[in-house]
């Protein structure tokens, strides 16, 4: 793991990001030159108070938002200035997202929610041809996150922990290289939160999944290999969590 961390070209990095939101006449400078990078297989937590810009940093990394100044690099190539179609493609193939409020689509069953990213990826005809494989894949992933028995349920029928595991399953089905998690435990009780973190850690190790997790919970943050602290849109410090690297090894 230590070797991985020392690799020269990070898998994903954001450099000197500046971002200002304008609401009416108010300009809020959310990011003031913050930068972050993650190597392949690394588990990073971004921590900071509300309004420190940690979620915005995650959105910029995941191409959901564009920086005003600065650049985002994927495998050393700039990706924030790509056209919309390519950005959509990267979101579908490279990144997986999980959110504080799970964000599963209420009209679809859990299984359909998990299959949704592949439905988006494939045309109707291609999806039809591969429907059995895709379903099998989704079932396996749901089994992996411990939801194999709830596939027919609608999101409204599931608990918070189940919803978040469902969201993780949905993020994993595309076999992403980077998982971006925005306060994944923020809406869960401590015990369930730890279960989710344990799941993320397992995925990080078994799938060599790069994870960037935003949280405001110190206890959760310390589960990562590296802890990046944001304050008022700038990086306050970045600490390598040796204890975690040791356990990982």
């Amino acid at each position: 793991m230590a070797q991985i961390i020392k690799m020269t070209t990070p898998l994903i990095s954001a450099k000197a990001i500046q971002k200002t939101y304008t609401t009416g006449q108010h300009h809020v400078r959310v990011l003031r030159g913050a930068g972050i990078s993650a190597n392949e297989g690394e588990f990073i937590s971004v921590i900071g108070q509300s309004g420190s810009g940690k979620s915005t940093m995650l959105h910029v990394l995941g191409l959901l938002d564009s920086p005003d100044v600065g650049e985002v690099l994927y495998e050393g190539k700039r990706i924030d200035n790509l056209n919309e179609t390519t950005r959509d493609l990267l979101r579908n193939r490279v990144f997986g997202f999980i959110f504080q409020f799970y964000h599963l689509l209420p009209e679809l069953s859990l299984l359909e929610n998990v299959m949704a990213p592949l439905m988006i990826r494939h045309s109707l005809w291609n999806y039809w041809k591969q429907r059995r494989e895709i379903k099998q894949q989704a079932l396996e992933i749901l089994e992996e996150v411990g939801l194999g028995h709830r596939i027919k349920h609608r999101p409204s029928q599931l608990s918070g922990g189940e919803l978040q595991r469902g969201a993780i399953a949905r993020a994993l089905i595309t076999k992403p290289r980077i998982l971006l998690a925005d306060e994944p435990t923020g809406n869960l009780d401590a015990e369930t939160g730890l279960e989710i973190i344990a799941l993320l850690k397992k995925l990080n190790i078994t799938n060599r999944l790069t994870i960037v997790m935003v949280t405001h919970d110190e206890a959760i943050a310390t589960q990562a290999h590296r802890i990046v602290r944001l304050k008022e849109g700038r990086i306050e410090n970045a600490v390598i969590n040796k204890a975690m690297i040791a356990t990982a090894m």
Partner: protein
Amino acid sequence: MYKLLLCLRYLRTRYIALASIVSVMLGVATMIVVNSVLAGFTNEMRDRIHGFLADVVIESRSKDGIRNSKDQLQQVHDAVGAYVAAATCTVEMPGVTSIEINGETYTTPVTIVGIIPWEKARVGPLVDCLASHNPTIENGEVLPALRSRGVSPGWELTSEAAEWRRFIKEQQEIILRNEGLLESSDSTGIVPSGSDVTVTTESERPEPPIFDAPQTAGSDVDFPFDPVDPFNITDSVISGIRKEPHEARVYIGEGLVSYQVRDPETGKLEQVTMIRPGEDVTITTVKAGRPEPVSFEATICDIFRSGMSEYDSQLILMNLEQLQQNRGMLVRDPETGEIIEDKITSIQIKLKDYTNAEIVVEKLKAVFPPGLVTVRTWESKQGLLLSAVEMETAILNVLLFLIITVAGFGILAIFFMIVVEKTRDIGILKSLGASSRGIMSIFLSYGLGLGMVGSMAGVCIGLVFVRYINQIEEALSWLTGRRVFDRDIYYFSRIPTHVSPMMVFCVAMGAVGIAVVASVLPARRASRLHPVRALRFD
């Protein structure tokens, strides 16, 4: 793939969208029903107009007519014989008809058409228009036809008409005899046949009084005339009553001899007949050549009922030769009495195939000098009326289509609502890699789906409604206690309908189009949502 799934899921789970489906459905169903009934009525009307007019009509510009009907017919056959199924000559002339009822004279302007009925029947369905050949609907009851439809129409009175005439004449005779006004005591009182005169001549009548002249003493007491009607013939002596029908026979338009009154108690329309077949009418018209008035009596032998009020309240069909005779359009050999020359005002032609009408018109125009006659198809002759009906249908369609447009605005509003409601889902889809175009197509196909479901439901309901319109009308009449569709007004036993597949297709496609157009704005809005803002939306 996700577009289709989400679109179908939204269709199934958003009950508010049902409102749009229902409004599209109602609009489509209304348009189909109204258009089908209108088309039914229009077809019926066209059939009736066409039924009375022939396919192609040659008319002389002057009411004096053109010479030699036989030569003219021959000319038609020579020019376009291959296209012609049948042709007949007629004389059309405006005139006045007087009907005498209870001493009152009702005078009405009419168009007198001289025809040869058996020839006219070959040119158009004359038999359909004659009361004696068809079952009659009178005050809601269907009376059987007096003559078979297979019988060629002629000028003979039906036995009922002859009986009625005999009865009427006997009654008149009794009244006149009781009042001592009948000259002869002969019980038959028959005037020699061939004479059309039933009343003593003008010279035998006392001079009408001159009201301005100084009157003799006591004359205001013993004044022998009714001052209101100085010509009242009851004060003259009548030599006899003509019991035999006149040589001149007519089919008289139904509107000229009867009218409808609504019974104030039952609210039902009732037919009041003023004069029946077997009785006489006085016809006045103008002679050919020098326009001198000519008046003659004619016996009604049938009622003409085409269902077109314009015709039924205006037309009198009479025997061609009698009309020609009375108008001085015949030249006879003084010795043999044979017709040497006659005049007619129009030739009606039925074609084997109406699609050739324009060719026939062009060929006839080349043969007949344009100064003397006009050659037209029945459609161009009735062009104004037909285009008025078309205009009416078009305006009605525009108005009805506005209903569907209103449904479109409903879809617009509901879709905006759904887009707002689904903002976060749109953010999620974008975070999963859905393109803006993909998001847009979800809502466009949602609109398309709504439109298609609404249209199909509307088409089904509309077609079922049209199919069972008479039963529905009966049920409504039963529920409300009043007849919704009064058969007496239109002479239809059923509501006529005509479903044009093209119309149904256009209406359905129009509705689908409007639904899609209405969903464009909300769909664009959805596609332009910023993913981060959409995800943060509460």
